[in-house]
């Protein structure tokens, strides 16, 4: 019993570290799109690990925690995709370090509009 609790605590701690690094990334990255990169990945992985660690501490909650992990895994990428797409449509600038922007090239040629793709 004690060992299971320690394993759970260690996994939860790893999740918290992932979340902390995600927060650090939000501060350090130069523009919105790179912030979304670190934000999405670290928050998804951190939340998943934290919930997974709780499985060891409270074995009775396993089913509910699995459902939570699934929901986080499905909804997090969708929400960050929508945020990024609408930021791009609203004209949020890319950082000066950007090397290539195919979307702008295609939008200039008028054959692409980043419209709602959930038709």
């Amino acid at each position: 019993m004690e060992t299971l609790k320690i394993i759970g605590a260690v996994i939860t701690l790893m999740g918290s570290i992932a979340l902390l690094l995600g927060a650090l990334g939000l501060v350090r990255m130069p523009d919105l799109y790179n912030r979304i990169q670190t934000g999405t990945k670290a928050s998804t992985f951190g939340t998943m690990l934290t919930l997974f660690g709780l499985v060891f501490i409270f074995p009775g909650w396993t089913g509910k925690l699995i459902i939570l992990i699934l929901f986080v895994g499905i909804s997090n990428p969708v929400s960050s995709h929508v945020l990024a797409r609408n930021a791009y449509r609203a004209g949020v600038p890319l950082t000066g370090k950007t090397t290539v922007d195919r979307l702008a090239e295609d939008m200039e040629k008028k054959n692409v509009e980043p419209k709602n793709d959930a038709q």
Partner: protein
Amino acid sequence: MNIKNIGISFLILFGFWLLLNGTFSTPVIVTGLIVSLIIPMWFCARCDVFADMRLTPKAFFYTFIYLFVFGFELVKSNLDVTRRVISPKLPINPGIVKVKTKLKSKMARLILANSITLTPGTFTLAIEKKYLYVHWIDVQDKDVEAATKDIVQKFEKYLEVIYG
């Protein structure tokens, strides 16, 4: 074809019900069976969300492999982003590249876009027909074909089997 949609919706709802309850007593199972059969028959009479899914043994097998590949990529992407965040020089080389997908099913494209978002240094910015615009934190190939090979193909080969 609607039997398929209703059947898969039923399985998902029933699975969720059992996980939420955490018990296998008779009243719980009977209630779950009835409710998760009524809801898809009522609301899913004309839906086509799962219509492209293949129900062959090979597709099930590939679904499991896909989950493993995806989990591995998720961990890898976090280590990668962590390395970039901690490093004092902030080694990023961002850009938006265009990639092409062979997948036709809407559901498969959704899963592909979500997987790209959660894996190393990439996220989907826009989808236009068979092209995906992907923001890449460390651009290695600006060319459409080469970027497709790097980003899309590791997932596409599994999704192609599952959804066709």
